[in-house]
């Protein structure tokens, strides 16, 4: 030690500096970790910050539920009006002939509903939501929407000097189930099954009753349309009347009213969802 002091003054200063700086480093480290630890066990002066976080989570679930409902009704209306559930769509007197259900009707319906859901949920401007990360599954009338590790950040709580002292980051696992039955409509499979049961009933009043019994959420009407050779509808019969062709027209009207989009997709109206089709050519 003595030899170093005598012969290498510059080295001596450097060594002293290193020692002091190391001590300083250790001191600051201890202070830093102490401060950081204090941050974790700190007192939250205002619990509303936590309420706000949970409120946001519940609110986002609510928005997802509303968006699913809106998407479902819009898709259903589009399918009902345009006869998109019918395989090889053919019209007669501007009514769809409903013979066979599209085999992939549920898949197509769900795909369109998902697209509409994305449009709807965007309206709510949900913070940090990346729609590509939203996982939507539809199984037998139940829609499951999952957003794993969805980040909800609170506003910072500031102290009297305006310095941010607490901020809450919350990783929510949003898993929302929406049962479409609450919208009181029937799936197109149920409508098809009802049609298969009721189509051969000859009396229109019995046919109407059959549809009503099988589709409780709809009011049903069944009308026999008869036409002459010129294509005119026959309203009065005599011994000379010849029926060239006839068919039974079914009108299903939802019991509930909904806010629906008009044909252009813009104008809204409050009304029932209606489906009109020919269930049997006679």
């Amino acid at each position: 030690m003595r030899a170093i002091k005598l012969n290498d003054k510059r080295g001596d200063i450097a060594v002293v500096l290193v020692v002091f700086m190391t001590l300083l480093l250790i001191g600051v480290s201890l202070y830093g970790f102490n401060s950081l630890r204090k941050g974790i066990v700190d007192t939250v002066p205002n619990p509303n910050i936590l309420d706000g976080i949970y409120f946001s989570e519940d609110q986002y679930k609510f928005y997802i539920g509303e968006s699913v409902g809106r998407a479902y009704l819009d898709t259903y209306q589009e399918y009902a009006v345009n006869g998109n559930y019918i395989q090889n769509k053919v019209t007669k007197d501007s009514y769809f002939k409903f013979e066979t259900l599209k085999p992939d009707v549920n898949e197509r319906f769900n795909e369109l509903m998902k697209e509409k859901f994305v449009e709807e949920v965007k309206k709510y401007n949900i913070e940090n939501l990346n729609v590509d990360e939203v996982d939507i599954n539809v199984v037998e009338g139940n829609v499951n929407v999952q957003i794993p590790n969805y980040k909800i950040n609170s506003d910072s709580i500031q102290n009297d000097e305006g310095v941010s002292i607490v901020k809450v980051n919350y990783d929510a696992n949003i898993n929302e189930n929406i049962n479409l039955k609450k919208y009181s409509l029937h799936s197109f499979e149920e409508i098809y099954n009802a049609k298969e049961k009721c189509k051969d009933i000859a009396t229109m009043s019995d046919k109407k009753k059959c549809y009503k019994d099988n589709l409780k959420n709809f009011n049903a009407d069944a009308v026999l349309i008869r036409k002459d050779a010129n294509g005119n509808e026959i309203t009065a019969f005599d011994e000379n009347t010849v029926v060239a062709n006839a068919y039974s027209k079914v009108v299903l009207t939802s019991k509930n009213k909904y806010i629906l989009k008009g044909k252009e997709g813009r104008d809204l109206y409050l009304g029932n969802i209606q489906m009109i089709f020919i269930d049997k050519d006679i």
Partner: protein
Amino acid sequence: MLLYNLNKKGTLGTTLTWFVAFIIIFVLMFTFIMATGWLALKKIFMVGGGNDIDIQGNTIQPISFNNLNSILNSEDETGVTIKDRLYEWGYYVKKDENLKADEVKEIISRNVKSNMPDFTENDCYLFYAYYEGKSFTSIEVSNGKDINERFSTGQNNYLNKVIATYIYIGEDRIKIQSYGGDIDACY
């Protein structure tokens, strides 16, 4: 040690080495100090992370979403939820069908009030729905006041503390708020 005195170039080399070392150590220390300082200032805790967090102050939750959601999902005499009635009301407001809008508004007001707890010294509730973009199109209900009266500035100040929830009628939206808490909000 004798060799050090004889070799000036070696001494210079050692000094240079220390000089470079000093700069490196200084930069590292400075970075470390800045990082610890920044971390110490940034007090973030993860909810559900197992940390101990003391809560002080008012623990009454004036902005619970459950309050609002239970009101929105409650049904009127005909089995229609208040939420669906709000859509209906919003539709008539949008279409400027004021008479029908007022009829629905009355149904909503009556049913919201019937779903609020009775007014006591501990229970004051406010419900507010507003069709944005249209003047005088709001529904204001309190369990302490008559439903036909409009909220005062004081009551609106209480509502401003509450996060708003929205439902959409096409591209338009209805702002909905529910407040429960301070007794003064009902006077």
